[in-house]
């Protein structure tokens, strides 16, 4: 759960070395990270293995820490007044009881009134009554943070402006979208509670992802040439010749024929995909799983195709328009 806390170092961990194009992939490699919940394309390996266990399990570690990215709901608090808070939170939860059932939540304190006091015990209990579990606070003054710590909550670093990534649609399909009117009304009466489904910390990751600059190639990639898009997607607005090789940490798009080798997700991103206008590849690979031309589905040869990883297997699917 609190795994999002460990996600941060992974960002640094993935620093790209653009000089090692040749070494950046390895067909033997096949890491699986089911823990990441499929939410983000988290290419990190396990951060560290913590070996704390002893004898009975024959040396098998009792646990391991993994970086993972989990969508979290943040409850942004403007001020705290128990009665009103209870009323507001009830109103929210009644909109989508299933969604809130046993929902872990982070209290966002960025907008909390200055010098306001916050009895965390009351807050946690009020949430508990609606079966919401407060797990951490984000931001807030030092005073508030130490109070939160006392109350057994985790601490997340303050969120910078404009980093909110609204993922309401995907994360909570059950949650009815507020109409513009109610949104406006809510803003007018400055509610104590502003629930927002968003991805915490992770944000950093997301921001980083946004910054990833896709590499766009306008000319054909010729035999003997190699093009690598570190960090992001590779987009080729022409054909890729037999004998050419294209690689990307992210997805690969080829708007012409793909006749050479295409390797997507070379740092292990199992969510990466390859798209091409016409499939005639010598080799395709995603996150180290590869197929050579003779093993490629005959049915997609010469057709617009996408290639993706389904568990351990490369799948070829015609893009049927």
């Amino acid at each position: 759960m609190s795994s999002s806390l460990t996600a941060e170092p992974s960002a640094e961990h993935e620093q790209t070395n653009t000089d090692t194009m040749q070494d950046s992939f390895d067909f033997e490699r096949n890491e699986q990270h089911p823990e990441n919940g499929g939410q983000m394309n988290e290419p990190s390996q396990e951060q560290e293995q913590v070996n704390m266990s002893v004898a009975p399990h024959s040396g098998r570690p009792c646990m391991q820490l993994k970086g993972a990215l989990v969508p979290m709901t943040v409850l942004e608090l403007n001020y705290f007044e128990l009665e009103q808070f209870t009323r507001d939170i009830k109103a929210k939860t009644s909109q989508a009881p299933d969604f809130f059932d046993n929902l872990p939540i982070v209290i966002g304190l960025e907008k909390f009134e200055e010098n306001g006091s916050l009895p965390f015990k009351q807050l946690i209990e009020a949430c508990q009554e609606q079966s919401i579990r407060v797990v951490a606070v984000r931001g807030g003054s030092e005073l508030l943070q130490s109070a939160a710590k006392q109350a057994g909550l985790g601490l997340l670093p303050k969120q910078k402006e404009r980093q909110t990534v609204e993922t309401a649609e995907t994360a909570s399909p059950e949650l009815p979208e507020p109409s513009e009117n109610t949104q406006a009304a809510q803003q007018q009466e400055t509610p104590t509670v502003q629930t927002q489904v968003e991805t915490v910390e992770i944000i950093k990751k997301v921001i980083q992802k946004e910054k990833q600059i896709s590499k766009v190639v306008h000319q054909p990639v010729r035999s003997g040439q190699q093009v690598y898009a570190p960090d992001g997607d590779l987009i080729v607005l022409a054909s890729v010749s037999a004998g050419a090789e294209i690689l990307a940490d992210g997805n690969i798009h080829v708007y012409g024929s793909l006749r050479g080798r295409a390797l997507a997700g070379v740092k292990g991103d199992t969510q990466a995909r390859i798209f091409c206008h016409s499939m005639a590849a010598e080799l395709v690979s995603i996150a180290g799983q590869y197929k050579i031309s003779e093993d490629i589905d005959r049915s997609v040869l010469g057709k617009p195709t996408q290639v993706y990883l389904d568990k351990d297997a490369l799948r070829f699917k015609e893009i049927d328009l």
Partner: protein
Amino acid sequence: MAKIIVITSGKGGVGKTTSSASISTGLALKGNKTVVIDFDVGLRNLDLIMNCERRVVYDFVNVINGEATLNQALIKDKQTDNLFILPASQTRDKEALSKEGVEQVLNELAETFDYIICDSPAGIEHGAQMALYFADEAIIVTNPEVSSVRDSDRILGILQSKSRRAELALDPVKEHLLLTRYSPERVENGEMLAVEDVKEILAIKLLGVIPESKAVLTSSNSGVPVIHDQQTDAGKAYDDAVERLMGRERPHRFLTAQKKGFFKRMFKGSATA
């Protein structure tokens, strides 16, 4: 402004020298002051095809090394006005071509010539790279078969990354596809790639298609570039290609197999495309 055009292919024996001879002759016949340089140091044969091998005194490498002036080395073509040949050395190897030396010779030629045609050696090594380095345009000579197409693709990649224009981030080298030794019958039989296939794979503009023709060999043997013989399909096809190189529109011909019997008589000599 002189135009420097390299005639290159990657693969050997596809018709670079044959094409260099006919294209430079064609340009000269159409009033352009033209020089053709043999970059195939050690294997010279451009002078044979152009019938001037007995007049070679100094060569390209002598000029680079300062052992002769350009005027001493240039051979004036006897059949065609406006045409000069700078022969290769038979006795040196390709390493004798230094970038600075080549540049100096090209600069000097550029002062007086409209077109400088560089006949590249096969391969992608030093000699071929020197031939293409200073090019403004490139004619990629390709035979309609897979290995030749692959090598042409490779040389196109080198043009994009290792030419002077690429290194200085100038406008890229203008690329032309010249498909030679084309045999429509063999294409129909599935023994050769069709023009369309080659165009699709290489994705560059088609300058011309030169049919497979016995006339090419006989004209090479007699030292008269085939473009002089406008009775032959190959001669006509080279003439079309030169027109297109000079920016004029010409329909492509000799792309389909000759019809037999009645049809052959009906369409004899007519253009098909």
